[in-house]
């Protein structure tokens, strides 16, 4: 691979072969040859340094600040989504206590909860939040390559959130068509929010896509073209790989959402019939005719399925790094992990119609899409095995971060297995639109990525704020959330098996009632507790900012570049005078023969002569 080093003596120091300490510590000529890294190709980046409060903290071009801005705004919308889910659970568990809620309200809450959590919370948080903060630091860049565009990206997201939330206050309220927004009912009278509500939703999505494209271009070019000296693609932390691949997916999947939203808005405003067939409403034939509702479903899910992996791949990447650092072991099968991320990303574009088995499309499609769907299980299972094998015989530090990692693995396996159920057409058809589906996707792309977010917050908070979050509070937070989330979603599998349909305001006098009522009450109680448990984290963060234990440099003894900045928290420009030079991958933990159990990426080979470092 790196044959530019080939003719240099001492290159072997980078291989896994042990070098005798004699030659390593000997002539300084040999040592510097071993440590040789090609000079910089790209000139230094000019940065705009803010002078006032506004340019430093509000309209700021520093990727780290933008990352925190994304994080805070996404969390804010996420809390709204959480409150909506509380209201839904109140209705489902204790309808008599939710007298203020009509069926229309319930549908609106379902819709907004789904859209907020998937797009405005998880996507924005992983890519906008973690992506902005971590990519430049982890690849050794001073900032994103287009800082101004990056700033605009956040403010577009801000406007998108504003438009979305504005729909709560327009006549008719927000759309209540379900987060999938299936036409024709989405824009027909009778569906809540079929007027301004759906229009604002479409506009908000279009703005989100536009804003995200600006950010996404930044992430991609920073990874591809702005790495520091010695940082090859195969030396990047898996976090960067996950976010990078997810961004590629987003750049290719969001166009379908944009086109779908645009066509839906035109159907609404101008009365075009892209998605609208001939419709008889209350004995009256509407103006619409000749359109195809299935077309929208294809467009939506061509976005919607990659979207699942836009959320999941950064989570995969981050969890790999967290596990490796806190188990003090190199990630098992790094290259396999990278390729698994890439393969999952590629496959995700060929599985979208498994969301449409009951849509009435050609049955042969079901055959094809079931096959591709089940193939995804292979790289995904590889990743799970590799996480477990990383833990195996590791020097595990059972701190809060590790707890979240373990919680993630368990939850993800659980949600993944139910995915195999739903990927098969014959099993899916009876389970379609039941609580089994709810349980599946909340486990696999709700709770599992959330566990990663939480783990990442506890892991990187010492970097962002310079202080450790409190471990005891963290353990309370973890156990309440983990056990609580299982109490919510595990019984839902059972509800699905007995046939309780999803998106029903109430169950009326159906035969499910007797067995489902008690369970619904239990689930609702658990949901209230889990939601409230998140206050522990907020309290922990506020408390830590004031009286937390100072973390200092590289508190977790990690290897990757973000911990090696001259100041903690890192300043604008990240690296002070000189950019770091990378000599190895970020997973040299517990290397036999090394003095310490970690060798940072910037440690030159001459300093670790005599150790069995990996050749990377």
């Amino acid at each position, binding site marked *: *691979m*790196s*044959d*530019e080093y080939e003719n240099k003596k001492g290159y072997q120091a980078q291989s896994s072969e042990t070098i005798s300490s004699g030659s390593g510590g000997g002539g300084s000529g040999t040592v510097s040859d071993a440590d040789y*890294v*090609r*000079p*910089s*190709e*790209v000139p230094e980046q*000019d*940065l*705009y340094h803010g002078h006032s409060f506004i340019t430093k903290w509000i309209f700021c071009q520093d990727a780290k600040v933008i990352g925190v801005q994304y994080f805070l705004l996404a969390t804010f919308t996420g809390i709204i989504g959480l409150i909506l889910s509380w209201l839904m659970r109140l209705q489902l568990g204790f309808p008599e206590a939710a007298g203020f809620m009509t069926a229309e309200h319930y549908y609106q809450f379902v819709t907004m909860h789904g859209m907020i959590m998937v797009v405005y919370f998880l996507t924005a948080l992983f890519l906008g939040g973690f992506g902005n903060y971590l990519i430049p630091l982890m690849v050794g860049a001073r900032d994103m*390559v*287009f*800082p*101004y565009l990056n700033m605009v990206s956040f403010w577009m997201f801000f406007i998108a959130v504003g438009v979305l939330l504005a729909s709560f206050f327009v006549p008719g309220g927000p759309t209540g068509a379900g987060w999938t927004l299936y036409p024709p009912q989405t824009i027909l009278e009778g569906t809540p929010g079929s007027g301004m509500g759906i229009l604002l939703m479409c506009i908000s999505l279009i703005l989100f896509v536009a804003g995200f*494209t600006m950010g*996404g*271009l930044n992430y*991609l*070019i920073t990874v*591809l*073209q*702005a*790495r*520091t*000296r*010695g*940082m*090859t*693609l*195969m*030396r990047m932390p898996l976090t960067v790989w996950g976010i990078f691949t997810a961004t590629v997916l987003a*750049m*290719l999947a*969001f*166009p*379908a959402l*944009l*086109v*779908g939203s*645009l*066509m839906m808005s*035109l159907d609404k405003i*101008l*009365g*075009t*019939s*892209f998605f609208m067939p001939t419709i008889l409403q209350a004995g009256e034939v509407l*103006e619409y*005719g*000749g*359109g*195809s509702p299935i*077309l929208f479903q*294809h*467009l939506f899910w*061509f976005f919607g399925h990659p979207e699942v992996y836009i959320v999941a791949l950064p989570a995969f990447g981050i969890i790999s790094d967290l596990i490796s650092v806190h188990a003090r072991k190199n990630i098992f099968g790094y290259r396999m992990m990278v390729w698994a991320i890439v393969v999952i990303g590629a496959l995700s574009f060929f599985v979208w119609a498994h969301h449409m088995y009951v849509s009435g499309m050609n049955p042969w499609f079901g055959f094809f899409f079931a096959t591709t769907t089940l193939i995804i299980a292979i790289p995904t299972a590889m990743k799970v095995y590799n996480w477990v094998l990383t833990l195996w015989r590791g020097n595990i530090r059972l701190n809060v971060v590790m707890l979240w990692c373990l919680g993630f693995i368990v939850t993800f396996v659980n949600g993944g297995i139910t995915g195999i159920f739903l990927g098969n057409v014959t099993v899916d058809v009876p389970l379609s639109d039941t609580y089994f589906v709810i349980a599946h996707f909340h486990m696999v792309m709700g709770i599992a990525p959330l566990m990663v977010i939480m783990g990442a917050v506890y892991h990187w908070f010492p970097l962002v704020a310079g202080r450790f979050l409190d471990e005891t509070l963290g353990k309370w937070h973890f156990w309440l959330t983990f056990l609580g989330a299982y109490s919510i979603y595990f019984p839902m599998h059972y509800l699905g098996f007995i046939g309780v349909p999803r998106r029903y305001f109430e169950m009326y006098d159906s035969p499910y009632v007797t067995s489902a009522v008690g369970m619904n009450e239990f689930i609702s109680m658990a949901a209230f507790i889990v939601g409230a448990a998140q206050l522990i984290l907020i309290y922990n963060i506020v408390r830590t900012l004031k009286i937390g234990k100072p973390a200092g440099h590289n508190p977790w003894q990690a290897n990757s570049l973000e911990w090696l900045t001259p100041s903690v928290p890192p300043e604008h420009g990240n690296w002070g005078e000189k950019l770091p030079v*990378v000599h190895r991958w970020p997973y040299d933990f517990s290397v036999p023969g090394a003095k310490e159990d970690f060798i940072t990426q910037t440690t030159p080979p001459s300093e670790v002569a005599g150790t069995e470092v990996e050749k990377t």
Partner: protein
Amino acid sequence: MSDPKIEGYEFKPGFKGMAKDTGSDQTMFKGVHWGKAMMWIFLLSDTFIFSCFLISYMKGRGSTLIDWPNPSEVFALHVGGVDVPLLLIAIMTFVLITSSGTMALAVKYGYEKNRKMCGWLILATAIGGLTFVGMQAFEWSKLIEEGVRPWENPFGAKQFGSFFFMITGFHGTHVSIGVIFLFIYAYKTFKGHYDEEKRGWFTTIKGNYVEIEILGLYWHFVDLVWVFIFAFFYLW
């Protein structure tokens, strides 16, 4: 194109060279300006947008039960007592493709630091784009006069009007944005922003003639998309 000179890095030809570049540190596309790489990736994303539009169009046209209007009649121009099919569209396409030619020349003169020629050619490109948008406006008003609307169409399936106005409108927006930027870039070229490496208006990035090539990439892309729209709407 010859490989750029990079200290300490040796290029290899062909597939091996690609693998080596990919596996190397710092950059994957050696010597490629950040903005240029960004434009390529943006265009890939934009390709997906137009693909979604055109695939939706094919699906819509395929599944409607009412006949699609005959394009050579609907788009015909009445000149000198005869209906000439595709006349306007042929001129429009010619103008747009020509403007791609002037754009390519502008890029060439830009790299040669020939400020005047470069500026005039960008201006010519902008005027070509403006002509295209003008003729499109003419075509739109002709169709609207004949009663074609996004929601109805006297010649057949109503989806014809919907898809036509939406897709050509979306493409026309792209052209218009391009024209605006062409005028801005022509101004900057004449003012010597690229020769003097002046910083951009909002950013700290220094001016460089590569920006003209980046805008050129966008312009050629808009042209290429037009070829597909032309084929799908006017020849099918």
